[in-house]
């Protein structure tokens, strides 16, 4: 990989999903070919200088031959609200691909994907790459209610999907960590890949350590440059020094980071 590029991308479609979330489809051929699962892009979410910083969003899915990249995101504030108003033909500047993604071992294996809420965003491209490398994939998705379970059908293309919701409206009634514990009681896995809020990642981290199953965790932190230059996005490393989430991450091995969730 030769480093990120700056691209001004045309919106080819945007669909509104449940729970204030959106699926954005952009024409970005170079990005589609150069990105790997777990990487992200910094999208300019406004005209000119307001908001001033770009917003980090994970690469959700790519269609290489068509030259398109998908982002799955939730409206949270000013930037994502602006993004949600874009429609076919609008142009969005972005910088990418950025960061260190998930490891896809070409030797294959059995992989368990754990996506809590919007944490499923980077996992779809991962599921497809794992399936390409002959991995067996099972995806666990968690949310408060059924409407927060995003794109389960897309994940079913690559393997089984199991869900957990707080109110039991989809799948098991309970948390994603309950579902994870149950899944690990029932079957064995070579690797866990997780993305979601810090308490979930902390839970996955301790399960990974206790059960000796390697895990990779995708973290979030506030970012300015996205390329490793400003030292603004650091998280605590296991050996006490700070790691840049945009450069050494956003995907870390479970033993590499100190999560205070």
């Amino acid at each position, binding site marked *: 990989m030769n480093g990120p590029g700056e691209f001004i991308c045309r919106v080819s479609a945007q669909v509104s999903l449940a729970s204030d979330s959106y699926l954005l489809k952009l024409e970005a051929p170079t990005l589609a070919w150069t990105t790997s699962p777990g990487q992200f892009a910094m999208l300019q979410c406004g005209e000119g200088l307001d908001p001033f910083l770009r917003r980090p969003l994970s690469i959700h899915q790519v269609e290489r031959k068509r030259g398109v990249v998908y982002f799955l995101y939730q409206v949270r504030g000013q930037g994502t609200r602006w993004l949600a108003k874009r429609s076919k033909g609008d142009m969005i500047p972005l910088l990418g691909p950025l960061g260190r993604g998930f490891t896809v071992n070409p030797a294959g294996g059995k992989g368990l994907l754990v996506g809590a809420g919007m944490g499923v965003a980077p996992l779809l491209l991962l599921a497809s790459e794992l399936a390409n490398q002959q991995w067996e994939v099972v995806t666990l998705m968690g949310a408060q209610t059924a409407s927060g379970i995003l794109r389960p059908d897309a994940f079913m293309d690559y393997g089984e999907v199991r869900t957990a919701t707080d109110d039991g409206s989809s799948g098991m009634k309970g948390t994603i960590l309950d579902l994870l514990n149950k899944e690990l009681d029932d079957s064995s896995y070579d690797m866990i890949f997780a993305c979601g809020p810090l308490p979930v990642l902390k839970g996955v981290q301790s399960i990974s350590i206790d059960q000796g199953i390697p895990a990779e965790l995708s973290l979030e932190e506030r970012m300015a*440059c996205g390329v490793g230059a*400003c030292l603004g996005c650091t998280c605590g490393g296991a050996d006490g020094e700070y790691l840049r989430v945009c450069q050494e991450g956003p995907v870390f091995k479970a033993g590499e980071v100190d999560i205070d969730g």
Partner: protein
Amino acid sequence: MADLSVNLAGIKMKNPVMSASGTFGSGSEYASLFDISKMGALVTKGLTLRPRAGNKPPRICETPAGLLNAVGLQNPGVEAFISDVLPEMLGFGVPVIANIAGSTTDEFVEMARQLSGTGIVGLEINISCPNVKTGGMALGTVPEVAAQVVEAVVKETDLPVIVKLTPNVTNIVELARAVAGAGADALSLINTLVGMVIDVEQRKPVLGNVVGGLSGPAIRPVGVWAVWQVAQAVDIPIVGMGGICTGQDALEFILAGASAVAVGSAFFNNPMAAVRIITELDEYCTKHGVDKLQDLVGAAWKE
């Protein structure tokens, strides 16, 4: 092509556009995006004598037309910088200036000593960092103290000494006069303005360090005013900075009296900002029949 070149206290640059300390890494982070050799000069992250871990996260917070940062001078220390980072920076074929942030006068002198003969072409004395408890801004708010640091460094080194000042003072002109009198070869202004943001849901400060430094377009008028006043009070060249995003922004600083400009936060909004600024400076000169950009330095107040 107009002549954009500048000789900043002996540092020869093909154009006046530098990177602002702490915002541009080693330059290699941006090397896949544009040709770094197009820049006038590169300035390093603030260096300290010993490695520094930096402040606890979150370290940045967006604000209207800018951001607060409280990185806290995370850096590998001057020795590791010289062996591990500097070669990469020198590889771009652009003058490299080291930003040094001692917590005592002795530390500044020691770093100046270690950096001479390494390929560095100038030192930027950072007595204006708001994010550290000792040294930093504390050394840069009292004219006598600032002058003492500068005098000691100037005595130690043959390199041009640029002093970076904080705007968090009652009278920046008085400080500028003091460090110019102590032998500074040039000045950089401005460093960030101190500020904070509170998360009303958590009812807690957003930054791990509570307080941080404000940068970006929000502070640009403060920077232009600082340059305007100081340029008329001292006769050493000035590097102007604070929210520069376009050629027009850079020209404001130049017309106020800056010989060179530095681009910082703008990279976060547009990673190609420096290229844009250089192109727009050239276009402005062509459009207005200016042969030499340096002829415009201070033109807003010169007769």
